[in-house]
């Protein structure tokens, strides 16, 4: 549970993961921001108006998946690193994930890396498709993973790296 150990529960996630119908229509953002905090860069960032704070800055972001095209601009801007993009239409049994990443060294496109879940446990491997560096120094990694892994994977580890 988020308040106790920092990980979202299945119910938390249920409310923000794309519906099966939305999945079929391609790339879409997943906003894992579950607390009312005074913050709104995601709403400022989205060029399509898919994220809003209708009343005030302390609300949770309100997301309209029909307006989102999965461009990933918000992924790089969110200070909570709480937004991801998932594209189930990427391949037959392969999904594309865009995740924010702030560690050095960066992986390179084509690398195979260890895919980690929300608790940092290894759940398989991911192929780095693209490394999108940004001026604000949050890098957006494009990862190809099996479709079955796409809701679980939220981080990576380069081969041979130990962190915690």
């Amino acid at each position: 549970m988020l308040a106790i150990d920092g990980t979202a529960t299945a119910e938390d996630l249920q409310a923000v993961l794309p519906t099966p119908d939305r999945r079929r229509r391609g790339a879409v953002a997943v906003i894992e921001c579950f607390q009312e905090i005074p913050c709104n860069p995601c709403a400022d960032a989205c060029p399509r108006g898919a994220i809003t704070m209708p009343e005030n800055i302390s609300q949770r972001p309100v997301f309209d998946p029909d307006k989102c095209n999965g461009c990933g601009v918000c992924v790089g801007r969110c200070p909570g690193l709480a937004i991801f993009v998932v594209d189930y239409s990427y391949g037959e049994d392969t999904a594309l994930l865009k995740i924010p990443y702030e560690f050095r060294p960066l992986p390179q496109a084509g690398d195979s890396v260890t895919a980690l879940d929300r608790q940092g446990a290894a759940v398989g491997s991911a192929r780095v498709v693209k490394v999108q560096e940004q001026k604000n120094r949050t890098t957006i990694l494009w990862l190809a993973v099996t479709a079955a892994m796409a809701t679980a994977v939220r981080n990576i580890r380069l081969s041979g790296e130990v962190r915690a």
Partner: protein
Amino acid sequence: MKEVDIVVIGGGPAGLSAAVHAAKMGAGVLLLERSQALGGQLVKQTHKFFGSRQEFAGERGFDIAHTLMEQIAQQEKIEVWTNATALGYYPDGVLTVKRNENFRTFRPRKLIVATGASEKALAFPNNDLPGIYGAGAVQTLMNLYGVMPAKRVLMVGAGNIGVIVAYQLLQAGVEVAAVIEAAPRIGGYWVHASKIRRCGVPILTGHTIRQAHGTTQLTGVTVCRLDEKWTMIPGTDTLFEVDGLCLAVGLSPLTELLWQAGCKMNFVPELGGYVPWRNEYLQTTHKNVYVAGDVAGVEEASAAMVEGKLAGLAAAFALNHQTADFAADYRAAKQQLNALRSGPLSAKVCHGLCKVMLEEAM
């Protein structure tokens, strides 16, 4: 003795913002900062900040510091003194300052105190071993000087500072064994907590330190669980083998100058300790002394900047400086501060502020 319109003490986000806005009103400002560079806590913050665009949300702390410093540099009315510590403020209105090795005195017409806060410590056996740091020291070593504080660290405190510094340790290539927190819930933003969780760092709420181990330096820490009454549960000890222990157990406002000035103070746990009574213009019970930022109540850089603006505008206005858009500017800043404090996580701060807000201007 030099006469000045306004002296601002402290070059953190609150003081920088106060100086800029007082100078924009036409007041002469002397800004004093005891360390060698401006920026306060901001220069150590490598993560992206929250808030809205007005408070530079999404930008990293040290980048925000640079933006504020550029604003300072553009104001001819501001004189900046670094390596300058305000030592005392006396009943005759004299402020004493040590700059480098020289002693100087001033008689400011208004004083804005923006000295920030200092870290709290924690009592446990062997808490004086080398390898045990406050979070501020860890950040200074790592983010200012590029020095690795330890190889493997246990973090104490899951407030924002604890979870953010744990993340910065990971970025610096330091292992983080765990983050422990005595309270039953994580106090920091959940998004920050999730960032370290997905790197595999456990967050153990309801845990505290029993003791540190080592002879010449830290070699390990024994941690145990707490029950609902915050007493240690026997038989729940776990030993973490670490060479670093980082304490992030809260801040308390640096209020010495306010006490000396005779400002009426109140003990408000929600704001970190003793803080001054103030009115909506951030003026204390001493009519020439204003406050802004963490010294007025431990909060956030976003709120500190807006408070600084309000205090700077109000102090300059009290000295008969005026601009055409003063009233609109002031009102907008008040609204901005209210918006920042409108969420459920600010309830504690708001509750605390009620205990030190004077109803009307003195």
